[in-house]
């Protein structure tokens, strides 16, 4: 257990050491690669700007994750209920993923403004698809025997969906949500790059223009820590909710 917690920190410390060695023993200029010390200093010096920016980006990601998950789950449920809806919706869903969100970003900023809305929409666009795809798959693949048993017990189609298919699909839904959480920051950050006046992406664009590479790195550091923490929390919650679906790997 101790090892499990220690291992990522050892890896991290190794990487930072390597990074520090690169800056200390090569003649790379600081605007190309600032040293870890410089980044730490920037973190402290710019803490108020960074804190505000982090709060904005965090809110965008959480809102996007919340709306994206609800939209994704609703679409999956709708498609399971109605094959007609599935036939009409599936091509649209694929289209929404075929166009890169990068390409859509300027349009979304134009439509939804420079504020938070366009970033949340972008995050939702990135997030809903893995949720829909996994949850829909899980709903369709409920064990035949479970369904047969429920039918011999005179369960209505609604009861079968609510008491059997929904639960049977939860592990698949969990996988989709894990993927969604991991990629959630993408939408928010792209939105902030394209047009915004707040958030970590905005700080990075500004720092980039002024060649403040150390500030860019400090924003990146915060973003990674936030993304990892978010993923760990979602993973823990899912494991607790899905206590009955044990993982079969890890043992002999």
């Amino acid at each position: 257990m101790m090892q499990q917690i220690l291992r990522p920190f050892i890896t991290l410390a190794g990487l930072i050491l390597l990074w520090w060695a690169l800056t200390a023993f090569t003649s790379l200029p600081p605007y190309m690669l600032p040293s870890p010390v410089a980044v730490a200093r920037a973190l402290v010096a710019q803490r108020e700007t960074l804190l505000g920016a982090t709060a904005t980006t965090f809110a965008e990601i959480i809102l996007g994750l919340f709306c994206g998950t609800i939209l994704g789950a609703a679409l999956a449920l709708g498609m399971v209920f109605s094959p007609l809806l599935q036939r009409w919706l599936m091509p649209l869903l694929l289209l929404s993923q075929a166009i890169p969100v990068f390409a859509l970003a300027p349009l979304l900023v134009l439509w939804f403004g420079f504020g938070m809305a366009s970033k949340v929409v972008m995050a939702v666009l990135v997030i809903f698809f893995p949720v829909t795809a996994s949850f829909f798959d899980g709903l369709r693949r409920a064990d035949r025997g479970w369904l047969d048993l429920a039918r011999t017990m005179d369960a209505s189609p609604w009861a079968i969906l609510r008491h059997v298919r929904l639960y049977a699909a939860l592990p698949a839904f969990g996988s989709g949500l894990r993927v969604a959480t991991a990629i959630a920051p993408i939408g928010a950050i792209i939105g902030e790059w394209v047009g915004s006046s707040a958030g970590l992406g905005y700080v990075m664009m500004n720092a980039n223009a002024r060649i403040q590479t150390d500030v860019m790195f400090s924003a990146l550091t915060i973003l990674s820590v936030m993304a990892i923490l978010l993923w760990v929390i979602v993973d823990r919650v899912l494991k607790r909710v899905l206590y009955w679906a044990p993982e079969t790997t890890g043992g002999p």
Partner: protein
Amino acid sequence: MTRAGCPGIVVDKLTLRFGDRTIFETLDLTITGGEFVVLLGTSGVGKSSLLKILAGLATPSGGTVRASDGRPLAGRIAYMGQTDLLYPWLTVQQNVMLGSRLRGEKADAERALHLLQRVGLGERAKALPGELSGGMRQRTAIARTLYEDRPIVLMDEPFSALDTLTRARIQELAAELLEGRTALLITHDPFEACRLGHHLVVLSGHPATLGAPILVPGRPPRAPDDPHLLETQGHLMRVLTEHETE
């Protein structure tokens, strides 16, 4: 728990085709109310399909199935599948009361617990199925079947996944607890058939036909070394292997 009023099952000219492949044609079978009948056959002969039709889970290409009292079978059947079919997210007791949950009725927790005690799992009511052994899971499935309290019980090789000794114990338990109900068990195991059935019927051939009912003397569950059982088992082995080589 003898139930004199249990209806029998009348299968009349039942036909099942998948495309131009005929699984069976104009099958006739009558099961007397309150009897334990075992349908024996090799894999792929159409046993499971026949049972699914009786359970209302599949539609035949032709023919009818009805209860001997003339009323429909629907709502009077309990079903046990090839695996225990316990829902892993429900506790053992909740699994026993599954029918109530699915029909939106108030669950009878006391009766569920009582049934669990009868199958020897009173202590494990709050456990999840994942924590139980194969034999315990199958006993939970029996308790769930009894909770449904239907006069007719259909079983699709429910014991085939268990090891020999556990299977023998569960067979005895099932025979004892289901006594008096109309039961149809399908299996490929002549030994299991001879232990449990009042009557045995062999389904064999392509398209499959039913052989004449075989009566095993003595009351089930029969002891593993019962002479009648051993004699009938030998006979069945001969019949089944003959059909295989045809």
